[in-house]
């Protein structure tokens, strides 16, 4: 019961941080508020008893903070806003939030209650994991042995997205910064 209360406090903090991220004018402050949301999320994972995901979340949050600060520190963010567009986007957002809430009301009723999951699949991993895989960290034994195919697909998603991003950014380099590719061969 105490875990649920702590989780609610953390969730309220995360909602406040997200609203600050969207509403604040200064870009650097928005990035830092988003980082606060990510760090609180990692604390929430710790309270839920998932240290693997907490480690991953805190490390990835640091990396994304560095990249975002590096990308936004010199950018002038002059937002050009027209009043009609704001009214249209607000109406669209409210309609879609309403639709999602209506469907979520029916969808969440069919889920098992919080903290009382059906242990059919996870009990199999807990009882057979150590004997069949030999890894004492059951999360790793699930994601790299029982469900390694899913992890492979996840790695391929990362591979594809990063190759795409790298290709788009590389076109810039070939046109304007040609010596980037030659540095390897000269030295």
């Amino acid at each position: 019961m105490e875990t649920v209360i702590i989780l609610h406090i953390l969730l309220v903090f995360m909602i406040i941080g997200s609203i600050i991220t969207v509403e604040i004018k200064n870009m650097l402050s928005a990035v830092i508020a988003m980082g606060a949301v990510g760090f609180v999320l990692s604390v929430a994972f710790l309270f839920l008893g998932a240290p693997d995901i907490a480690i991953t979340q805190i490390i990835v949050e640091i990396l994304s903070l560095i990249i975002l600060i590096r990308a936004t520190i010199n950018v002038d963010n002059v937002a050009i806003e027209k009043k009609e567009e704001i009214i249209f986007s607000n109406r669209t957002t409210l309609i879609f939030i309403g639709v999602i809430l209506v469907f979520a009301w029916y969808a969440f009723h069919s889920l098992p209650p919080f903290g009382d999951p059906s242990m059919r699949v996870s009990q199999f991993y807990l009882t057979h994991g150590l004997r069949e895989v030999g890894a004492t960290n059951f999360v790793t034994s699930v994601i790299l042995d029982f469900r390694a195919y899913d992890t492979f697909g996840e790695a391929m998603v990362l591979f594809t997205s990063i190759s795409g991003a790298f290709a788009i950014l590389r076109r810039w380099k070939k046109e304007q910064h040609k010596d980037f590719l030659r540095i390897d061969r000269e030295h």
Partner: protein
Amino acid sequence: MKMDKHTGMTLIVKMITRVTVGFMLVFGGYIVLFGHITPGGGFPGGVMIALAYILITLAYGREFVEHKVSGVTASIVDDLGALLFWTMGIIGLYVGGRYFFNFLGKGEPFNLFSAGTIIINNIAITLKVGMSLYAIFLALAILQRVVTEEEPKEDEK
């Protein structure tokens, strides 16, 4: 080792970077290699190793790092990691009949070499994730440098 005093950040940042980068790399390697015993694994370890390289890039400037690990090298290592991961799946398919079959010995629990192919898969994911994120950071940093350098040239004309 070419050390240009005028690139990168101040001397304080460079000294602290020189001390801390070793610890970051060792801890990243520990998280990867003991991923099947303690919490961790390939993904956080790879991001931690990428963060060590990013710290060197930020402190010493881009030119210092590109002589060690350039964007092309990082991209090639990234591809090799993905290829190693896929190769483990294919070997498992031919040895055991199932994709990603754990064909190595199980070993004693709580030992370093205990869980068969999991440790190799972790290393493959580490190479893939770490080097790809580092390459993305290099690309973004170079893009920003191009934009900031071109503006004074246009003013001169």
